[in-house]
Every structure is written in C-alpha cells, then in structure tokens.
C-alpha cells in the first residue's frame, strides 16, 4: 500500500505553540508524521511531550498553529467532526487508565458497543481476540485492580485497538515496566504496526525503545522551548551537532 520512496503524511503539525495560560511551553513546532511511521516524541522531563500528545489527540487546544489529520485541521472543524477523526485513533495512557469498576472485557467492549452495531456475541468474540492479541486470553472477567501493572498496560492496548484504529498513540509505554516486559511491549507494537498497517506515535524517553523501534522522531528542547531536530533517531545520533540532542541521545555521556 505505502511505498517507501514517497511517504504520505498522516498527521501534519505546522507552527504549533503550546501554552498554559501565558506560560509558553513550546513554540513553532513543525513536523509531519507519515503513514506507517513509528514516530517518537522525545525530550527531557517537563519539556511538553505529554502536552503535545494531548493536543494531537484532541484533549487540549493549542495556543497557535494547526494539526492536520490527512488534510483536515483537527482544531478548526466542528466538535462532531473532530470526534469522527479521533475515532480512527487509539490511545494507550501511561498507567493504562482502565475503568476500574469494569472488567477487562467490559473495558474493551465499551468502544465497540458505542460505535458499532454489533450484537453482544460478536462483541464478546472481538474482545476475546483483542485480549488474546496482547497475551491476556482468559482474563476477560478480571478487574483492573486484580492484575499486574504490565498486564494493565497491555489491557489498555487492547482497548486502544478495539476499533481497529489507523493511528495508535502511546504515552510512555515502557514506564514502570521491567526491561524484558518493556522489550516485549516494543515487539508487540512493531508486530501490530506491521500487521494492522497502522501509524504509531510514541511519547517516551526510553533510549532503548527509541533506537529499537523508532523510524521517525521529533526532539523537544526544554531550554530553547522549541523542537531542534526531526528524523530517524539513529540518523540523528550519527549526524547531529546539537550538543543538547547529543547529550540526550547518549544519556549525557557525550
């Protein structure tokens, strides 16, 4: 479907400024996320990675600039249309954000019940498939408080994938996971990207993940209050002259 020579932009960000009241967090962010990318939003703590994600998924309005999904501006269309765009996305929150009073099956089923006309049996089958995909077959009737943090994260991923999204967003997917689980989650993300032909956007500062799975990235510099680089993280490491980016990509060793 996609040819590697001519990347199609899936999300295009132009001149974006993020601010809380009069406090400007980042200004002049311009980059595009191509179809099939594993796009990393990276930067030190407090640089606004999560805020950028919130703007991309429609939770927070930018102070200036545009976010285009294909050719539609997310923040300039009426809210109803924005919901339609966002329904084609799935988000995995940092701690899973599963609804604690619902079982895993009910958590995954809710988007399906809301947005598809499927009957309870079809939904149950789809839910079992999604949970099996993230390695949680048989845990349908567990409550989020009864499973481990890593399992909660995977269940959150099953919920994010419920509607077969075109774009999957991850907020710090490996935070709070042991290295092996983090690696397995990375593999899972790669596998799902390949099989579902989805675009993946990841907010993270885990260098291991950044280099292992990232195909494109943007670096947010805390001190300069803007982005200083975009591109494949491995290329950035090889080519960059910017001291703060080098510092970040080498864990402060260079």
């Amino acid at each position, binding site marked *: 479907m996609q040819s590697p020579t001519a990347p199609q932009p899936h999300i295009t960000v132009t001149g974006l400024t993020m601010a809380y009241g009069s406090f400007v967090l980042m200004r002049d962010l311009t980059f595009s996320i191509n179809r099939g990318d594993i796009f990393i939003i990276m930067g030190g703590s407090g640089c606004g990675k999560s805020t950028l994600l919130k703007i991309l998924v429609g939770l927070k309005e930018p102070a200036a600039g545009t976010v285009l999904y294909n050719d539609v501006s997310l923040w300039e269309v009426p809210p109803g249309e924005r919901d339609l765009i966002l329904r084609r996305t799935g988000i995995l929150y940092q701690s899973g954000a599963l*609804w604690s009073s619902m079982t895993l099956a009910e958590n995954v089923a809710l988007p399906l019940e809301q947005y598809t006309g499927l009957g309870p049996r079809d939904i149950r089958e789809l839910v079992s498939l999604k949970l099996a995909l993230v390695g949680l077959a048989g845990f349908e009737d567990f409550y989020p408080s009864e499973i481990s943090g890593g399992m909660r994260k995977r269940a959150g991923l099953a919920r994010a994938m419920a509607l077969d999204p075109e774009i999957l967003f991850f907020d710090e997917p490996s935070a709070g996971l042991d290295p092996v689980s983090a690696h397995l989650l990375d593999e899972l993300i790669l*596998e799902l990207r390949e099989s579902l032909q989805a675009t993946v956007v990841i907010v993270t500062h885990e260098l291991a993940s950044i280099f292992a799975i990232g195909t494109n990235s943007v670096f947010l510099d805390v001190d300069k209050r803007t982005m200083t680089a975009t591109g494949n993280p491995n290329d950035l490491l090889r080519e960059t002259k910017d001291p703060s980016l080098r510092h970040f990509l080498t864990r402060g060793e260079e």
Partner: protein
Amino acid sequence: MSAETATSPTKAAAGQELARPDASTLVVRFGGAFALGLALPGLEELRGALEAEPRPARLVFDATDLTRWDSRFLVHCRKIMDLARAAGVSVETAGLPAGALRLLELAAKVPERKGAARTATREAWLARLGGRSQAAWQAFTEVLDFLGEVTLAVCNLARGRAVMRRSDFLALLHSSGAQALPIVSLISALVGLILAFVGAVQLVAFGAQIYVSSLVGIAMIRVMGAIMTGIIMAGRTGAAFAAELGTMQVNEEIDALRTLGVSPMEFLVLPRLLALVVMMPLLCIYADLMGVLGGFVVGVFMLDLNPAQYLAATWDSVALANFWIGLVHSAVFGVLVALAGCYRGMHCGRSASAVGQATTSAVVTSIISIIIATAIITVICNILGI
C-alpha cells in the same frame, strides 16, 4: 442481529465460497470486504461441508479476492479454524493475507491461562446465608478493630506521641467549622421558623402564643440544634472524609504512610476526629441561636408578640440543663460522624466506584447512628430525670 442470518453465504459481497477441487481438500474462498459494520457470511454451509461425505482431510484458505479486512475477519477465521479442528480437519493458513496470518499467530502465541476464566456459580441458599453471616461477623470485628485503633491513637495523643500535622488539623477545623456556617445558619433558622409555625397553630387557639418561645427554645436548644448540625455535617463533612480517605486508599497513599511507619490512624483519622469534636458543639451553639432567631421572627412579626417579652420568656423557660444536654448530643454526633466517615474511607476498595460506595455508606451510617444516639441519650436523660 447476528451476522450469520443476515446474508446468504455464497453470493454476498462480503462473502465466502466453498469448493472441493479434489476429494480430500476443502477450499474456503473469501471475497469482498470483511469489516466492522458489514454483515459477514454464515458458517452453516461450512459446517455442512466439513461433515459431508467424503470427509475433507484438509482446509485451505484463498483470499485473493479479499479487498479489505479488519478484526472481524480474524474472528471469522478463528471460528472457521475452531470448527475445522473440532471436525478433525487440518487447516492450512498459508492462503490468508500476511498481516492477518501474523495477527492470528500472535493471538495464539500466549495460550489461555488455565483457571483464569471465571464461571458464575450459584450457591445454595444455606451457603449464601452462611456467607452473609460470616461477612457480617467480619464487618463487625473490623469495626471493633477500627475503634480499638482509634482509641490507641487518642491515647498516644494524650501522651503527646501522636504523629499528626498541625497545619492539617487547622485546615480541617476551618473546613469543618467556619465553612459550614452559611448552611448551618440557613437550615437551623428555617427549622426554628417551622417549629414556631407548627406550634403557633395550636397555641393561638388557646391564646397561649407566648409559649411559642418556650416551645422553640427548648426544642432547638435541647435537641434539634444538635440533630440538624449533625445531619448537615454528616452530609457535608463525613462524606468528604470518606471520599478523601477512599481516594487516598485507591492511590496507595495510605500504604505509603504505613510503610513510612506513620500510623494512618494518627495522621489521618485523629485530626478529623478532633476537628469535628471541637467544631460540632460550637456549630451547635450557633445553630441554637439561629433557631431561636427563626422562632423570634415568627413570634414578633406573625404573632405580634413583644420582642423583649419573647426573649424573656425564652430565657425563663429554657433551663441551663437543656443547653448542656444539647452540647453533649453534638459532641457525640461529632465523634460518630467523624468515625463513620473515616471508617468507610479507610476500608474503601481500590476502584472509582468503591469511593462512591464508601461515601454513600458513610452518610447513611452517620445519619442512622445520629438517630440511634439521640434515642439512647433521651432515654438516659429520662431515667436520670433531667
């Protein structure tokens, strides 16, 4: 509406065809789009074909005409594979789209955890009764535990060893005292007003409207002022205690205190208990005054009584004992509301809905115990003759 009855299996746009190129092979040929929101072909024909003589030995997929697919296609394939496996037919998945094939492998990679799936069991009524009684007994011992721990915390406080922050205590005094003044004013003034109206209807008939003052005075100061503040504080502050401590329980903040060696009883429950025990009697005195004021408004403006006369009659009729009894009521209510709120909060489950339940049961427990305590105190006063 189930997809299986919605379309005729062979000719639908999102369809599947079955073919038998040779005696041992059954080919399932998919065509069109398999996606959310579209009707999928049924499996009846396939079930028949799997059992038709001569029995096929293997099942082969052909997806060359498949235009679009998503998770529902995977579910459909899994069903077909399960059916084939049940019929003893081997499945060759090579004909499926590469992405679908990988996802199916991924889904099968981690086997279903044995014993993880839960089945709803129905217990016999005797077992249910036994379970309920055990749960009730356990709840009772938990309450005793809690009361014991609170008592120990109070003892520690008396010995000056309790760990609790002054600023927390002061903030609680403010939120459960001063901030409650507006609602206490409104409710108790209205209760005084209502009492005066109800009494006036009867007393005016005897020309004894001056006794409205003693009716309102004694009722408010002896018991109503305390009960009204108790109920207001149960809904206002008791609920807040339960919600706050419950949320701390959900966020593991209480565990964090325990592991730090700080007793949550001293650090969280004690300041709340003290704040309410100090503030309830003060609020009660204030409510008494507002209630008398409500009666005064009715007496003076509706019944045309002399203001000085009304106040003098109130002063004469209300014995000081009534005032003290009211204060005892309110101090007891303060303890009950604080304990109910803190107990429900500390024993909250670890989910958002558990916080809601804890808050609800804190208010219900407080109000029930306020009414029961009033009854007990009234009986005791009656026996003692005060």
